[in-house]
């Protein structure tokens, strides 16, 4: 059976991982799509865990309550206000540039190889657009709160 201490320890560990992830993001903003998705999933997992623990925590678990508040502040001040808008901006710019680049290419008289190489760029564009949709869903969740 999981004790309150185990839960508190697990939550502390996940919060620390999140903080480390934010530190890494701050120092290198060129995240690939996999890293972006991973970051959002981590934020959502820790947020859900905090919400659930707040409902379940006994009033005497002051350490845990403090840790929850600290983590929620970390997500709100560092992720929601800084990292998330930066990711949105980067994705939007990247999608716009890639779309313009693809549109400006001469589409007539392309060789088979050129067509199939360009198709990879179109796939990249679709992937970035899907990621932006995913990130926008997070933003919609914030505005619903």
């Amino acid at each position: 059976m999981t004790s309150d201490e185990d839960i508190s320890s697990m939550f502390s560990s996940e919060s620390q991982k999140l903080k480390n992830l934010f530190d890494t993001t701050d120092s290198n903003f060129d995240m690939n799509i996999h890293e972006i998705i991973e970051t959002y999933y981590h934020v959502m997992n820790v947020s859900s865990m905090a919400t659930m623990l707040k409902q379940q925590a006994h009033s005497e678990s002051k350490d845990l309550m403090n840790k929850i508040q600290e983590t929620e502040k970390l997500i709100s001040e560092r992720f929601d206000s800084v990292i998330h808008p930066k990711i949105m901006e980067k994705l939007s710019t990247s999608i716009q540039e890639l779309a313009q680049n693809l549109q400006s290419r001469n589409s007539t008289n392309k060789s088979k190889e050129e067509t199939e190489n360009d198709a990879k760029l179109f796939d990249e564009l679709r992937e970035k657009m899907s990621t932006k949709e995913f990130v926008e869903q997070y933003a919609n969740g914030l505005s619903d709160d």
Partner: protein
Amino acid sequence: MIEELAKNLVELKKEFAQIYNGKSQIQEVIPKSPSELFSINKSHLELLHQFVSSNPIYYNSFEQRIDSIDCVVYEGDINKYWLNSIQHGSSKAPFSPTWMMSSYIAALFSKELGYSEVIDIGSGDGRIAYCAKILDMESYSIEIDDMLVDLQNTLASTLDFHPFCSDAVCFDYSSLHLSKPIFFIGGLAQMGGVSLASGVLKSIQSLSNLKNKTGWVFAGTLSKKYTPDPKNQAGWGTLIEENNLKYIRSISLPAAWTFRESDDVQYIFAESN
């Protein structure tokens, strides 16, 4: 005969999907000549090849024997049309063509049902309307995306399938003087197809001479990737019931987007009740 043709095409596609090792975005096959499994008028088959050969969405072709059938494989790319449609927001469902052979079989079935005109709504490159024309039916091709209509105009020189650049919901169908039409609705129910079909149905039901003698063909899917309709019919059951249409039958046929899928497109044929 038409059912057999459809079944044989689905089998041919399955075999082709297993052996195809190219990298093209879209690909399709057309039998090189009539055979026991593909008993098609030779001149019709030539016209199918002609449409694809002169269509700039295809950039390569080669001959290949697939499951004992000599075929021509066509490789294509529709990315620039996709990019245009998303940038201008002109279309709810991006262009993704059905196979040429599928268009021909669906048009054959429409003719067998006794319809005299085919109106292809959300027609992409106009291939269904073109196939109807091969079968001596009158045809009209309505597409909202101007880049696709430009493409259709280059392809309509062989057989004029009457491309129109228009929003099909606002189109004046009385101007076509239709007598016994069948409407093909492009786009899955779950991808804007219901709203498109509802708009066109409303227009046609307001025309007293067409209200009770119009056929409808809806492109549906049984794929679990899409939300099913509570009344089934590959996503179209509710619309069919709400508009008092009578289900005739469905035919499964390959399209570009079902190439790697186990389920092909379900073409649902219905008529006014």
